[in-house]
């Protein structure tokens, strides 16, 4: 049987192809490929055991990387709401939303990226605060509209809320004093106006 030739190169494949008169066609566009940006998906799901696992497992299996995920039940005990932030191009995130819809426990998925929304995140930061720096730290906390929730010898715990970038800014600001611990909830997002994703489901 013949394999590669003496140069180790394979023989050229026998090719054929349609040859309508107007020259080579442009390559077919692939789905997606647009600019990557941060997207916010709101998923309303049945509050059942394992539903968080289903959502996170699907995102992993479909190669989407979740930036943050916040979950809690809604006003109705049997329905939970997830706020998922992820980076991707518009088509890829649309695909993520469609895949989420395939889950039986998912009632509604909405990409609110382009819509006017309220976005808030809460962070607790345990900041090193010695006698010499405590006053400065407290001043910064005050300016950033943070709140001290615990004071101990050598440290304070500060609560800040705001958009992701506001929390980022505060964390950057106090980093020079030393951050002993940091925990963030991830963004929770709600569309502005009187429309309601939860009422839409009930209808």
């Amino acid at each position, binding site marked *: *049987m*013949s*394999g*590669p030739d003496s140069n*180790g190169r*394979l*023989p050229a*494949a*026998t*090719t*054929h*192809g*349609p040859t*309508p008169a107007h020259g080579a*066609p*442009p*390559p*077919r*566009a*692939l*789905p997606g490929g647009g600019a990557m940006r941060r997207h916010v998906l709101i998923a309303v*799901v*049945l509050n059942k055991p*394992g539903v968080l*696992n*289903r959502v996170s*497992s*699907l995102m992993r*299996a479909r190669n989407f990387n979740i930036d943050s995920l916040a979950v809690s039940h809604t006003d109705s005990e049997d329905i939970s709401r997830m706020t998922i932030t992820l980076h991707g191009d518009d*088509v890829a995130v*649309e*695909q993520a939303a*469609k*895949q989420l*819809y*395939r*889950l*039986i*426990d*998912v*009632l509604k998925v909405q990409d609110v990226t382009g819509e006017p929304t309220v976005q808030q995140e809460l962070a607790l930061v345990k900041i090193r605060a010695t006698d010499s720096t405590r006053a400065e730290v407290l001043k910064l906390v005050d300016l950033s509209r943070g709140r001290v929730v615990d004071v101990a010898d050598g440290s304070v715990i500060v609560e800040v809320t705001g958009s992701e970038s506001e929390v980022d800014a505060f964390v950057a600001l106090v980093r020079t004093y030393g951050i002993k611990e940091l925990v963030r909830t991830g963004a929770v997002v709600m569309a502005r106006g009187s429309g309601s994703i939860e009422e839409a*489901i009930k209808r």
Partner: protein
Amino acid sequence: MTIAKGDPADPPPTATRPTTRRSHVPNDGTAEAAAVERARKGMLHEGRDLKRTRIGADVLCEALLRQGVDVFFSYPGGVILPLYDILGDYPELRHVLVRHEQGGAHAADGYARVTGRVGVCMGTSGPGATNLVTGIGTALLDSVPMVAITGNVPAALIGKDAFQEIDINGITLPMTKHNYLVRDADDLPRVVAEAFHIARTGRPGPVHIDITKDALQQETRAQHPTEAEIVAGLPGFRPNLDGHPRQLKLAAAEIAAAKRPVILAGHGILHAKAWDDLVAFAEKAQIPVAWTLLGIGAISETHPLAYGYMGMHGWKHVNRAIQSADLLIAIGMRFDDRVTGNVRTYAPYARIIHADIDPAEIGKNVAVEVPIVGDAKRVLQALIGLVDEVDPSTRADYFAQLADWKEDSLASSWHGSGAWRDGLLSADYVIERIGELTDHQATYVADVGQNQMWLARYAGFRNPNSHVSSGGLGTMGFSVPAAMGAALGRPDRETWAITGDGGFQMTFQELMTLVQDHIPVKIALLDNKKLGMIRQWQEIIYAGNYHSSHLLGPDFLKLADAFGVPAVKASTPAEVDDAIRFAQGVDGPALVWFETAEEQNVFPMMPAGKGLSDLIEKWGGADE
């Protein structure tokens, strides 16, 4: 309490014993402790009370019967024994004792594909459950309606690494349409009904139900839900069946404007039982039909508008038609990479109408001009009403071109003499003879690899649901067990399992099931003493570096004899017809061992990553 990885173990406890134990084991005397103790005893003590009451296992059998299940494929084990204890009370439920749970899952799959009904397989916890996994994955990738049921350890022992406990729910979660863990017999009627509803509604797929042993044993009076109650209980599952009227109008306009349209028919046509609608639509609009591997049978190959099988090993003329088409009408298919090759060079002149019941499939692999979300039957029926009747003469030039290409393509890679250049049987010839001698009316079940491609190309399919093949997952060893289910599903048809020596050696233990249950599967074993498709890729893509593609096989006649399966061997073209007729004449399972050419390739072939215009049609010798 803070625990970090790598921390040293706690120091030994001091002399004073704490009043509460510092572990998750419940304290003695509590209700939890009593439950764990009962569960442990239950694991050791089998058997039910002599006084017969309705238990969870009864509910399961009732629910299966209500769903119209007549046969299921299973293997007993410790925690599922409560079911086996009462199975004798349900003689209308046929239980097929498989030899390996994977075979049971494939059999349920084969049954589902030929009947369009939901296939059912079962296994016990632990290894029984994990053995089902390959079959469940096969069903998922090919959208086959299946309900897989496993037993699990008693609820109180879950999470304690009990004997034969594995987190099977976690394992099947990403590879089922939905899955359940049932700990309470009162939930069983609802869960089983939901599982069947989900498995067959919308885009079909496998659903897994894990049932704890105590739920199977528990007394219950729970009633079975009505169809309306099931739907009401699944608010997140409302598949969209009707295509959007605006999209359908757009599609009709595209079809009216197209000069070189091609229909791409997929598995969705078969799932929706839309084969007649497909033919009516194609005839009215005079559009040739190409099909995917799983779309085989959507239109009879004898129909004048049936053009052929597309893709990596599809017909050259079909791929050529797709590459020069100005409109593709894709129905119930998903533009798999085996169909498109390199998407950048796929159908470069075509606009695409894509109708699928699963919105996630649309725009996933290729960007399309007209997306339609809906059931293939309803979409086709709507389109038939919207398109104009086309006079074939207006497409005369197009049809002449297609006929030219077809003539040119059929002449290549065909060994009408029956022998390949090494003198041994040519596999394409063998497949063609099986098709002819069964009058193209059998069910043909492929394994995976070269045999699968030869079957798809040369058997000549006439009927819907007559071709069973593991397309998406490409599961070797699929053929024999799937044929077992297919034969039980359609006993009115002859059932042929087409397999290679590689795949056959993966699951041939099911021969014994065929014998024990007297299931008349005819097995065509194409033995090239190679992992043929591996060898082909190694020859063409890996510069002839044949590592591990040479496969030693047993004496298959002796093997079949040991199982009690009548068998015959054919090595020359003259013996082929007699061998096939021998198998047809056997009442029960039979095996034909075809000694085929060792180095025959399936051509044409689209190398992975290349486009449909880059087909390899010849390699090495003059007569592939």
